[in-house]
């Protein structure tokens, strides 16, 4: 590594630290203060560190609602992301490989999902008709519908960079369509799949507007809804609010740390070199 790269790296770190890291330090510091200290909202270190007390206060609030919320959010996120990866890759694959009027139409159709703000009340009406209102699996399908456009967009763009020679070689070898997809294409999609998983699971985990409407009821509470409810409940206890933000940030962070290596590996392995 050249010296120049060290220098650029060090400068980048300094800038990135100020812009991206300091705000989170602010969250962490204030999450550990007492209510009175956190009301001043400054960078001073806590005079009295009360991490555990704030943590237990937040977790125990409203009958351990946060734990239930973590469970529900996890079910919704895992279910929806699994479906999105399979569905989205299939759609992106066919759309990219089989250009036709019909494909263009379907692509435009799916992309409308990126543009049109969902029609909330008619959606509630539809959900009730098919008995999915107020259910976790209904919420999963909603997230699949809303996340499909973005997922297909990513897969289609990525599949464009995979040479057709690969699938044609498999077809010549006698592979059937499903085999071509699952044996040849899907493994090559790993980098973009990781991206989809990371981005969609965070989007779904962080979504609060849709659960608010489609998933009413205390037993269906999600993590973002607790943050939202606690926002007014902890109005004079900024320390608990920041502790809650901290807790809500941790699951996506774990996902990211877990998948980060694969992202880097996927990017650098050159799996899709022409």
């Amino acid at each position, binding site marked *: 590594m050249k010296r120049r790269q060290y220098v650029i790296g060090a400068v980048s770190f300094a800038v990135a630290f100020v812009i991206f890291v300091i705000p989170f330090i602010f969250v962490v510091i204030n999450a550990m203060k007492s209510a009175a200290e956190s009301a001043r909202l400054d960078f001073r270190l806590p005079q009295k560190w009360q991490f555990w007390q704030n943590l237990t206060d937040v977790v125990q609030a409203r009958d351990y609602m946060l734990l239930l919320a973590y469970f529900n959010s996890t079910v919704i996120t895992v279910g929806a992301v699994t479906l999105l990866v399979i569905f989205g890759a299939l759609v992106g694959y066919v759309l990219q490989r089989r250009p036709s009027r019909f494909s263009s139409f379907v692509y435009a159709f799916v992309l409308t999902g990126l543009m049109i703000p969902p029609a909330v009340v008619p959606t509630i009406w539809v959900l009730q008709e098919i008995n999915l209102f*107020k259910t976790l699996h209904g919420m999963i399908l909603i997230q699949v519908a809303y996340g499909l456009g973005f997922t297909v967009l990513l897969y289609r763009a990525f599949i464009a960079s995979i040479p057709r020679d690969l699938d044609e070689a498999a077809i010549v070898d006698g592979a059937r369509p499903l085999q071509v997809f699952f044996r040849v294409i899907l493994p090559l999609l790993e980098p973009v799949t990781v991206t989809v998983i990371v981005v969609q699971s965070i989007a779904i985990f962080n979504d609060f507007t849709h659960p608010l409407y489609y998933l009413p009821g205390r037993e269906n509470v999600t993590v973002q809804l607790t943050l939202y409810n606690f926002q007014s*409940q902890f109005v*004079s206890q900024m320390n608990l609010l920041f502790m809650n933000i901290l807790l809500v940030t941790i699951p996506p962070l774990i996902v990211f740390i877990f998948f980060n290596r694969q992202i880097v590996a996927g990017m650098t392995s050159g799996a899709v070199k022409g």
Partner: protein
Amino acid sequence: MTVKHTGLTALTSVLVLASGAAGAQQLSILIDNNPDTIAITEALTAAYSAKNPGVSFDIETRPGGGEGENVVKTRLATGEMGDMFSYNAGALLQALRPARTLEPINDIPNFGAIFDSYISTVSDPDGNVYGVPHKAAMGGGILYHVPTYERLGLEIPLTWEAFMENNAVIAADGQVAPIAQTYRNPWTSQLFILADYYNVQMQEPDFADRYTANEAKYATTPAAMRGFELLQQAYEAGYFNADFGAATYNDGLRMVALGEAAHYPMLTFAIAAIQQNHPDEQDDVGFFAQPGDSADANGLTVWMPNGYFISKDSAHIDIAKDFVNFIATPEACDVITESVGAGGPYLIEGCTLPDDVPTAVAGMLPYFEQAGRTAPALEFLSPIKGPALEQLTVEVGSGIRDAQSAAALYDGDVAKQARQLGLPNW
């Protein structure tokens, strides 16, 4: 689900009421997430369950404000409301189509104990009444810091002129901001207009009716315009705290409790929050009605409290009615006082307040004790309230827009709402 239950319910609820025990029943209540509402509902349901061991409650919270209103409307429209919910009286209640969605409570035994002033805000044109108040009546006016008033030798102002003179003295003193404004919570910016309604009514007694009938407008009725003008005057005089654009409701409470600001225009429900946030300073905060142009016509604009309402789709209507019947008793008032303190006069016959009420509540009671010194806020006299008022008052209070233009725009906003409600003459 509901169909399966209804057959059984009539029978079991009769049994429960008769025996006071047996067959466990659980009722759902949807309430807003205001800490007071939660504390009150928890205390009242616990008290009821203690008397009726077979009945328990599932309390669910929703956001406050417009988002919460949407949740309530959606649930009522889709039959997902459950048994009971807490909601505003007045204009907001009318938007729920009570005749179609709510169960009338005219037949509960304690119906006569509910004050007529409240009944009129929770009934439909056919005389069906839907709610029982679970809080005390509130006043809209000005919270003030008593030690500052004492230190500067100020008196409670009976006219707007006197109020502005007090502000001038406070500003000259230079130690505290004369008026706290907190526009990060935009709803707090409307107080000068809304709390001025007593003064409007003194000058234009039929304003509410003519306003509802599309005959009177804010921009063309000088008495109604006055509220916007007062806000503009206060801004132009530079009497607000320096961070008024970013301060929160809680900051406002802190400022007036700790003496960082001398005045905070607010509803009296804030007194409970001050008690909770600043227990040592609660007696430093006093309250007076927003003064008008004449000292002879000084009075208080009153807000009706939220009530409990019963969904027409409830599977436990009889028990729910028995519960709201319990709310209309002095016993229930005492439970409320015990859980969140005394916030003002109750609207139930026979309810009393303890002797040692907070200073600000004591400042509010005299208005209720003399006839003609209170008037309901406009939203309890008319079904129309434009949703953009709080943005407009933020603009006036921040010097972005003048009073005249804001009042004219508000009239347009009101017209839109009236057309959406399908009112005649719009």
